[in-house]
């Protein structure tokens, strides 16, 4: 945890057991969104077939944005907002937990896929 000069919290990492649960969810969410986006791109013909296996920065940023948004929606749909609020976890920290696996996944894809 880090505090600013006036004592307000700048960054607080939730307990590892909570992080594990939400990072696992984030990983599943990222995989599903990745597969879905690839399938949509393939079937709609919007992207040439030879480019489907290519990695792009714009695509990765879009994936991160989608995962952050869907993560927030997921928590609201599951009715966990009050639970997380009472645990002292705000939306920023929640988004970070959903983004970690998506960012790592995109990093991995940037290494193994051609640009």
């Amino acid at each position: 945890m880090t505090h600013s000069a006036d004592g307000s919290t700048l960054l607080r990492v939730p307990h590892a057991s909570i992080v594990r649960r939400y990072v696992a969810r984030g990983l599943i969410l990222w995989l599903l969104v990745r597969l879905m986006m690839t399938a949509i791109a393939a079937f709609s013909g919007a992207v040439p077939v030879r480019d489907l296996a290519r990695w792009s920065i714009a695509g990765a940023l879009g994936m991160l944005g989608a995962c952050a948004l869907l993560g927030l929606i997921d928590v609201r749909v599951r009715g966990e907002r009050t639970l997380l609020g009472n645990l002292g976890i705000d939306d920023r920290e929640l988004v970070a937990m959903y983004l970690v696996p998506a960012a790592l996944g995109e990093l991995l894809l940037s290494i193994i896929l051609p640009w």
Partner: protein
Amino acid sequence: MTTILAAECMAKAFGARRVLTSASLRAVSGELLALVGRNGAGKSTLLKIAAGFIQPDGGSIHVGGRAYLRVSLPMLAREGVFYLPDHDLLSSAFSIGDQLDMFVQQFGQGDRADAAALLGIASLLHRRASSLSGGELRRAEVAMAVVRGPLCLLADEPYRGIAPIDIEIITRAFRHHTSLGCAVVFTGHEIQSVLAAADRVTWCVGGTTIDLGTPEAAARDDRFQREYLGPTLSERVIEAEAKRRAAAFDS
């Protein structure tokens, strides 16, 4: 007696409908405060504002020696406030035991077994919220507050739709909290149970709040009788309060 959390001159409108114009709330350590009022009077809205769950149009929140115009539930939770909504506190994605563990681990305090024993949910720890009855679910939710050990507990209609025995167990948990110096504020329409549990009563009426004092004083307040209790219930409440006082005197 220390004021843990105070909401002063709160105003809130939903569209053209002004729910609160100048309502105040003061949560004092070691005290059970009942916030009562008719449906739509703004009790839940006031509690939600005090918990940082919704933002007010005006007024200020005082907590931890600081005044804030806007607060959020995560921020207040870190200051020791726990908000028990009238429904949907628990997730059905995790077991009750797992969710108790989250509070123990996140705040590094509380005992899961003690909280489960106090609320009578030891046999339910492996189950999920969606599989519990109304009374079991409410007791499990209060167990989260117990294991958190907050400085201030804000409970919205904790007695709604549950059996008298569950009301008694939850009241016992509230009393346990106040004995440790926690401030408890709760709302409810189960007026006999509410007045029997409370140390002080605040009446939410006409967009504002009126501090009625002790439950005995509240039960004898003419306007409160006329506009909230009604004549039949007034007599019953006064009778029950007299009996309670006599029993307390005897013991």
